[in-house]
């Protein structure tokens, strides 16, 4: 028993006046600690998984949101096991091995000596946990189809479905507007999306850097001028509203740059789309042709300052009063983004 953990000092009571006399039998500390830890960590994990877990943000409005919720829950379960172990050991040590008045120093003697076996177990276990969390987190960050994150203009992970609804998110100081290329390129104040559908958000900006964060959809993508940042989501059957926030400090009204979007049924969506397309037609004709990015500085008080070759200026004229210049407009990339209801 000489190399048993209990005999190595780390769980043994300090050598005190009674320790040497053999008057008090030393309890099996490790067994006690293990039992307490097992019960607390298992109970905590079960309660979390079945009671709290289903309510953890960002919810289940999209497959990607559900994925993020699953990741949070898995990471919580793993960390609860560690946290409960550490706290129980700490509490136990405080109580069990506290100094008694007038007694000897409780951390001296064999209790303070090192133990190679315990140290090896500790370092190996914690390293494995951290590496596992790292691998899990990294993989989950990109699966499936980018996990709702902005993948840049040329996404590596694309949905396999051929029915993807493209929606352009245009950030500007200080409001998001949305363009629907499959509805005549109309632009709207509100983001309405159909349930049970693959959606490609094409996020861009016509001034500074913003960030499109549709919280309950599990989508977050940077909005940069001149960049078409694509993020995919697949909506679940859950209907209702969600929050859209700007998540990149973008000026005085950054904090006010939010709105609420809506997930509706496919039928409602098609009805809303055609209705809005008709209602907006008188203004849609003034919008620049639909493009994946726009030149933010094409027509401002300082005039053209950006390289505008190959891009549509956001407004159809560069300088007021001048004849609209003919621009080489990057036509929308041909993608499989044709959207129809099934």
């Amino acid at each position, binding site marked *: 028993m000489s190399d048993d953990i209990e005999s190595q000092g780390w769980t043994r009571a300090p050598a005190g006046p009674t320790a040497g006399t053999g008057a008090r039998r030393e309890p099996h500390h490790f067994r006690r600690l293990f039992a307490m830890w097992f019960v607390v960590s298992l109970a905590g994990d079960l309660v979390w998984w079945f009671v709290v877990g289903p309510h953890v943000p960002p919810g289940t409005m999209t497959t990607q949101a559900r994925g993020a919720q699953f990741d949070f829950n898995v990471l919580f379960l793993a960390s609860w096991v560690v946290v409960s172990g550490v706290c129980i050991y700490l509490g136990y040590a405080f109580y069990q091995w506290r100094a008694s008045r007038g007694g000897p120093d409780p951390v001296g003697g064999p209790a303070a000596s090192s133990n190679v076996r315990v140290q090896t177990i500790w370092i190996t276990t914690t390293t494995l946990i951290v590496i596992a969390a790292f691998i899990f987190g990294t993989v989950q960050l990109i699966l499936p189809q980018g996990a709702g994150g902005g993948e840049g203009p040329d996404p590596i992970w694309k949905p396999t479905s051929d029915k993807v609804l493209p929606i352009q998110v245009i950030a500007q100081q200080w409001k998001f507007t949305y363009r629907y290329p499959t509805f005549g390129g109309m632009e709207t104040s509100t983001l309405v999306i159909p349930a049970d559908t693959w959606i490609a958000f094409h996020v861009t900006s016509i001034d500074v850097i913003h960030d499109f964060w549709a919280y309950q959809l599990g989508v977050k993508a940077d909005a940069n001028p001149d960049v078409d940042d694509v993020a995919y989501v697949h909506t679940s059957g859950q209907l209702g509203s969600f929050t859209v926030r700007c998540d990149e400090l973008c000026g005085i009204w950054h904090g006010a740059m939010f709105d609420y979007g809506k997930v509706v049924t496919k039928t409602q969506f098609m009805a809303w789309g055609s209705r809005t397309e008709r209602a907006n037609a008188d203004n849609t004709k003034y919008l620049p042709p639909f493009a994946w990015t726009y030149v933010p500085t094409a027509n401002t*008080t300082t005039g053209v300052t950006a390289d505008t070759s190959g891009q549509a200026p956001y*407004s159809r004229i560069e300088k007021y009063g001048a004849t609209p210049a003919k621009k080489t407009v990057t036509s929308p990339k041909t993608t499989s983004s044709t959207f129809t209801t099934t």
Partner: protein
Amino acid sequence: MSRSGRIAIVLGLLACAVFMIVWVAMNFVGSEPGTVSYLTAQAPGAPVHLVMQTDGVVGTGAHPTWVSYRIQTPKTHVFVHTALVELPANSMIDVTIYQFDSGSPLRNQFFGRVTGTIGQVAKLNGKTFKVLNSYDTPNGQGVGHTFTVPSLNINVPLEGNNTSKPTFCTKGPCSPVTQEHTTTTFAFRTPSFSGNFRFQCFIPCGAGHYAGNAGPMQTLGYMGGFLEVRA
């Protein structure tokens, strides 16, 4: 160093820090624009007549060359340099905006459409319109500014003026009686609850700042403010 020497240095640094904090705080407090109240301007329930103007050059304050909104006081009819206005909740607000600045293209033509007003329309010099686009405005002067309250979905574009007219206002406060301007009128209802609703211009009009986005666009009381609705 002696003990008293060290204490003196610490106290000196402390005094500097306190001075700087107070100085920044005083500047911050002092920079807050005033609020024009329309709470008791009309009998309860009666429509409120809110009058504003937009000046290309505000003429006063810390940045006299900047573009700015001004709000008229309901009783003394003075155009105050601020963009904070108190309005009663659940009330009809009849708005008149005298626009004195020149026009430019809209950055986003989306803001050429009138939304959120009664009937989804506004009147430009008495004529009803739904869309005012920078490239076919009635007087060919583009859009000067917009009056936009995103959380209430209100957006009204305001037409620009011809800078070559001798009566073009070059320095605020401008006179709707003697100086070149366009008059835009519309009505909207305030919500039934209290709250501060941001309004701003959606044409980056900070001339001299990068892409027009900084300066007056980023400073409370110039091209942005609050409708402070009180129940």
